[in-house]
């Protein structure tokens, strides 16, 4: 087979497309099984099928709800309509505070406790993560500032 520029191009294009196809398959498979949906406490409480799926739970840390016991921390996340108990073993970020915005990532267990393996309090200077602010504004509970 004569090795021409055409062959060269064909060869590399097919190799490239092959890799790209593999990557697309990987992405499609990974995306459906690893993407986490964002929910507020009232949405999650109302949802009966909220079992095995991973969620990002966003809201305000309910004032007075933080209980630390050894390495475990319990706190309630509220959107001013419903609140949900969150349990976690990880280090809470320095910006985690009562009455302020938080995003917890994890799963709801059988007894209705949200077990978080990630707690984010990354946010701008208004102490409110964007996801949370959007949701709360949408529901008309939060107009800026901390607390309900």
């Amino acid at each position, binding site marked *: 087979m004569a090795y021409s520029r055409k062959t060269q191009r064909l060869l590399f294009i097919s190799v490239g497309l092959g890799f790209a196809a593999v990557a697309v398959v990987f*992405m499609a498979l990974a995306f459906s099984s690893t993407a986490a949906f964002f929910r507020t406490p009232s949405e999650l409480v109302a949802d009966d099928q909220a079992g095995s799926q991973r969620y990002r739970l966003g809201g305000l840390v309910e004032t007075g709800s933080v209980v630390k*016991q050894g390495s475990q921390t319990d706190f309630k996340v509220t959107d001013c309509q419903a609140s949900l108990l969150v349990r976690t073993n990880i*280090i809470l970020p320095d910006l985690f505070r009562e009455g302020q915005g938080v995003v917890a990532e994890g799963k709801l267990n059988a007894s209705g406790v949200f077990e978080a393996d990630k707690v984010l309090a990354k946010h701008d200077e208004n102490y409110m993560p964007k996801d949370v602010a959007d949701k709360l504004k949408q529901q008309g509970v939060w107009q800026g500032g901390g607390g309900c």
Partner: protein
Amino acid sequence: MLTELGHYALILATCIAAAQVIFGFWGAQRRHLAVMQAADQATLVTFALVVLAFAALMQAYIVSDFSLRTVWQNSHQDKPLIYRIAGTWGNHEGSLLLWTLILTLFSACLVLAGRGLPTTLKARVLGVQGVIALGFLSFMVLTSNPFLRQATLPIDGEGLNPLLQDIGLALHPPMLYLGYVGFSMAFSFAVAALIEGRVDPAWGRWVRPWTLTAWVFLTAGITLGSWWAYYELGWGGWWFWDPVENVSFMPWLSGTALLHCAIVVEKRDAMKVWTILFAVLTFSLSLVGTFIVRSGLLTSVHAFAVDPERGRYILMLLALSIGGSLGLFAIRAPIFKPGGIFAPISREGALLINNILLAIAAAIVFYGTLWPLVVEAMSGQKITVAGPFYDRTFVPIMVPVVILMGIGPFLTWKRADAGAVAQRLGLVLGITTLVVIAVLFLRRGGAWLPYVGIGLAVWLITAAAVEWLDRVGVWKGRFAGLGRRILRTPNAAHGMSLAHAGLGIAIIGMVGSTSWSLETITAMAPGDTADLGQHCVRFNGVNQAQGPNYSAQVGDLTVLRNCQNDWLALAPEKRAYPVRAMGTTEAAIISRWNGDYYVALGDEQDGKRVVRAYFRAYVPWIWLGGIVMVIGGLFSLSDRRLRLGIPRRVQAPAKGATGSPALATAKVDGGAA
């Protein structure tokens, strides 16, 4: 007074940048020398004015001039000097000014260093640089003016977020920006080449040092950012796949591809369209990175306050720059003649396949970062993807990349001798197998996946070492004159070996820390010990201490070697900053060759302290790998071929002369990468 001067300088710089654009493009179009020289002057003046503006803002921060809005919002008199200085760019307006400063600095460097460039090409490059500068300067002047005064004069500032009061802030953003903005040079060269309709080996060689400089800074910036996020608690460790980390990683992936394509243009006059495309993409990704962080589209610790006015301006700038350059690419790219033909098994072949893979890797990160935004816009569902997604997509794509990185340097240009290469690779594979078996034996087994990762890393390091030894001629048993041969080897070749090996070292750290780390979290009374693998941690108590603008509780902990003898002393802190009524937790870290002892102090409970102690295996290797990569880049940058023989275009490129690089300086080549 100085503030007004700075403000004035900023507005004037905007006007002069406009002049730079007009002089550059018009002068080049008309081939009018005086006009093109005026573009040079305008570039230097713009730079000087931006320096003045930046100095004025920095001075306002240093003397705590709270009549300025940004200073009031982000600074405080009690802050140590270094953080008052670093605070200049620890906010939206200041970071934009830093960005522009670096952009104009690169343009000024081109004027001063680019005397050997064809005048029209240089004028056009400056013109493109001017367009970018104009975009940023007008954005600042119109929507985010750092010199905005406020009517009432507050007594004190609101203070900088204590989390940002860190040496990381002084180093990480400037480094990252030098990288992001550095790619603007490759972009401008690419756009200028599209306008001129000419890409040749000389062009490849001019673009190379700028790309390399940007790559070195971006690598250093990402490594620094990773290190900062690692020792700052609650930021998710050395890599978190946070959107903002991702946006710095995308230009790195695409910039790495660009770096390698530019070599093929320089050596073989091939892969021109790829190079142009990667140059445009890399800077576009840098712009997306800068603006995504600024626009607040994504939730992240880096998000500054946003107002819709800014968002719209940002989108417009992005659409103009990326749309414009890609449109130009679509129209002009077909005119470039295809370069030299090469066999599938050749260095070009390996580079091309790795570039395709890097582009796919960048696309995966792009998809994971931005697709959730699309989903939200279409369905209103907010979703996020994180680590597990990339573990299943990005990581598998990097496996062939690392394997090919080991093979590529052994291949010769055009067509490689498969037999000779296989012989070398057999040696590399043998060494790799032995090392992995040794590690398996020392660690007494465990999950198999980490050993695959370690194997890949060892493969890469060994391949880099064997290739280097080959190049300097150790294999042929010629030890006489070895030192001279090492010196005579082009620095770019040393640089390649170092950079490749550096990635291997970093992979060891990444795999090790992900797979073999230990942790223990317990409430401890003074005198208690806790197990941490084969060693123990003892809690001795807590002392009070006073910092410059905070008070602290300092823990006193000791790591006991094999749970017997005192070995390492650790002093983690919990700080309270009165100005922002905030606390920070400072971990104490001691590094050993095989990992970090990492301890953080928790809250007090019934007379006991919650102590979190970690052994983070092989983490220092990540930073070491980053440093080695940077050193490799610097070596390559110091190559005398990039400094000495300023390349000149040959008058008439010989027709079909695919084998001879059309460069006046090709003789000092040495066949290096």
